[in-house]
């Protein structure tokens, strides 16, 4: 337990992402501020006839340039490779050494205790081995009986499926590979609360440090659902955009979300630990809230009560009064990273929830969705949006919501439409909030603050 009964402060000391817009913090940030789009045709498989045939696809990392022990990760699925690459960036930025050279965990000073380094990811399952899985099933089909012949199925499965490709689909594999590559022996978790997963992971990782159960946590998420059944599943739910020229998030003519893929990883530490080893805090995590809609598996609670509950908890945790104004007349939150998927339902209910939470302050809080540029990274979305919040705090710049071309009367807040905004003239971004809402009703909110001693 901690020696003091005050919550230990938790800071972010490193960040890395692997996204459809690139894989360096500054490079991706410049593209986000320019409003670039990472969306294009699906290249991983032939989706030419799919109702939704475009996604924001991410360049698969070459681990041989990133990890000294890359040969141990040769079987890793794409999502795990995204995660390893993002962790390497974050690790380097945190001043913990370059994993491309051996001796990584002890590169920092003072040396890290492996048991005090934990991992909490919100990672999705690995890529389905679609071709072999489909072929196995089809080989076993008995057309006369209109049923599977299990004898034929087993034979085909044992011919076609591989142990590594199946095992690497387990959602705990990114955690497993990161622990191995970076020598972490502390508390390790993976959660999978759909689109809220990595926000929840970062929140719970923060709580683990607050409880004194680790000094350093590697946290964030990695995911891809860019495979035939992943895209099919969302098409059947009518959640995906079918027109790449349709409006973006919060636009009246929006028609669904665009799938993305990638990873976002941050290194977080107890403030004392970070300062003792001479690390530079990039931002402080001051609030976390989690809730469940407990409403329906297919619909969001229409008043946005679940979202409000998560935001309320996070703001209370941070000790921030949502209705206050500072001495300069600014609202208490300077930027919201919206969940902002681009579905009809999400964007209007999210807007309603923000208004319910911040009332008179809501119209004065800029809120944008980077999903309009890099698509929806599903389980990894919250992590890249958390890093976006860090970047707004560091630079005072806000990324836009692109393709917001037709106002929706139900979405009447400031979404930073189509053009990045410089907040430095009004004092930059002191406090940012990031929302993530999962399919099924799990909601999570983080509040980040500029670090000051």
């Amino acid at each position, binding site marked *: 337990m901690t020696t003091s009964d005050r919550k230990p402060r938790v800071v972010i000391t490193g960040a890395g992402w692997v996204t459809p817009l690139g894989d360096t913090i500054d490079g991706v940030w410049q593209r986000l501020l320019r409003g670039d789009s990472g969306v294009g045709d699906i290249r991983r498989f032939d989706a030419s006839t799919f109702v939704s045939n475009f996604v924001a696809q991410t360049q698969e990392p070459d681990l041989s340039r990133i990890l000294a022990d890359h040969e141990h990760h040769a079987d890793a699925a794409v999502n795990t490779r995204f995660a390893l690459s993002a962790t390497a960036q974050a690790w380097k930025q945190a001043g913990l050494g370059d994993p491309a050279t051996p001796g990584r965990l002890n590169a920092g000073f003072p040396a890290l205790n492996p048991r005090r380094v934990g991992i909490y990811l919100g990672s999705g399952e690995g890529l389905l081995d679609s071709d072999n899985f489909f072929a196995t099933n089809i080989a076993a089909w008995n057309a006369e009986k209109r049923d599977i012949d299990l004898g034929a199925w087993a034979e085909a499965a044992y011919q076609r499926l591989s142990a590594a490709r199946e095992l690497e689909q387990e959602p*705990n594999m990114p955690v497993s590979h990161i622990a191995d590559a970076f020598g972490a022996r502390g508390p390790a978790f993976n959660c999978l609360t759909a689109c809220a997963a990595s926000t929840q992971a970062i929140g719970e990782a923060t709580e683990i440090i607050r409880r004194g159960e680790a000094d350093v946590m590697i946290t964030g998420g990695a995911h891809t659902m860019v495979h035939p059944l992943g895209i099919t599943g969302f098409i059947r739910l009518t959640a995906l955009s079918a027109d790449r020229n349709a409006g973006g998030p919060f636009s009246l003519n929006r028609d669904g979300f665009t799938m993305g893929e990638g990873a976002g990883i941050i290194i977080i530490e107890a403030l004392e630990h970070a300062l003792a080893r001479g690390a530079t805090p990039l931002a402080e995590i001051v609030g976390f809230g989690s809730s469940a809609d407990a409403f329906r598996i297919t619909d969001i609670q229409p008043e946005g009560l679940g979202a409000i509950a998560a935001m309320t908890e996070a703001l209370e945790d941070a000790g921030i009064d949502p209705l206050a104004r500072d001495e300069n007349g600014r609202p208490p939150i300077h930027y919201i990273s919206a969940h902002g998927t681009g579905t009809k339902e999400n964007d209007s209910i999210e807007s309603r929830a923000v208004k319910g939470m911040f009332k008179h302050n809501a119209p004065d809080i800029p809120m944008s969705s980077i999903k309009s540029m890099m698509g929806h990274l599903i389980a990894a979305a919250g992590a890249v949006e958390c890093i976006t919040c860090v970047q707004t705090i560091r630079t005072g710049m806000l990324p836009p919501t692109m393709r917001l071309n037709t106002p929706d009367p139900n979405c009447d807040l400031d979404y930073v439409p189509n053009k990045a905004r410089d907040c430095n003239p009004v004092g930059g971004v002191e406090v940012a909030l990031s929302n993530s809402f999962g399919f099924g009703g799990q909601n999570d909110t983080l509040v980040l603050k500029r670090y000051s001693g």
Partner: protein
Amino acid sequence: MSHAIPGFPNHFFISPTRRWLHSPRMLDRQVVITGLGAITGLGIGAEAAWQGLLEGRSALAPIKSFDASAFPCRIAAEIPDFSARDFVPKSYRKAVKVMARDIQIAVAAARLAVQDARLVTTDTDDEDITPTYAPDRVGCQIGAGLIACEIDELTRALVSSLDDQGRFDLRAWGKGGMNNLPPLWLLKYLPNMLACHVTIIHDAQGPSNTITCAEASGLLSAGESMRVIARGDADCCFTGGAEAKINPMGLTRMDLAQRLARTSADADPTSYVRPYDPQATGGLLGELAGICIVEAAQTATARGARPYAKISGFGAGHSPRRGNPRELAEGLIAAIEAALKQANLAPDRIDAILPHASGIPEVDQVEAAALEAVFGPKTAEIPCITITPNLGDGMAGSGGVALCIASMCLRHQSLPARIHHGSPANNILAGAATQRDAGLNNILVCSNALGGQNAAMILSKP
């Protein structure tokens, strides 16, 4: 929405704006287990599992739910006579068809846990109820596995999209073949749907999470529930996990991973799973759902609940992916030592251990190395409670069931019988034994996941 809590003195009521009250101070509240819900091969309910364990019965038998004759492993512990429709309110029965079996057994176990804890929730067709806890004070952390889609349902759709040579044609699939899948198909298999259905049925609006770390999922979930209650974000949580891998894809995946014994029709189906026996040939799967109700000791006492156990310590740690057994044990050692430290207990205060005990020699060897590293030569004197020879390996469902069984041990001050058809390594007390009464104050429950995540929890007599 009523926030009144029957039987609660007013000052025990915590307002929904709870963090306001204690921020920025750290809360650290004691957590107790007050309700058990287990669905296992030994039957419906924690009591059924407990009775079966006391009598040394095993649910391992030839697989009945599908024709497994072509698979190398044909034995598992399936849940008998289970219909999820019997475990949900009438108004929710329609939703059962969008629940994979993992979800169905989780939902049923959650109902049993609520009933056992004597909580009132919205899990009823009666509109006129007052829930024991305000909805936003109830959290839900339920572990889950990677859920394989049902192959017959999928294949029926896939075969609508074949080319001239009978191969799957993505273009035909995109043009309309995929419409043969039901619209909500994806939702049937998302691992977070275990928790989502439970939160909807019971109106649990507090923090909700889905831990997916294979065999460690259940205990890691319980550790998180403990953290959520300790810090004041909920007073009561559903915790544990469920998994049902006894289907062609689940069975194949686990066999490819070399986790399963290859079985023969001639041998006694209960003879395969032999924890810590170097001659054992592998584990067997079991369908398991284990959900516990955990509460803040303060609010549980206030409503007059009778706890089975208090959670006195939790720890987690990660192992490397390669190395010798002692190196591979690092994460489990870290987890157990962290749990002991949090419980402020010396190793000699542990009266029994409920380990994962998969029956896979290489895995058990690592677990034994961890126990020996923590408990030294005394390891051989601490009785193990092994449930895999009775219930099979329930993956994400195993941790929650383990907590149910350890809770029963503490309540009844009794150790169940142990089945063992071989000889465990002599440093581990896990050989065949009959049921016996025992003075039990502290039980260590631990698990290690394929992938390297480890969790340990210490339950103590309340």
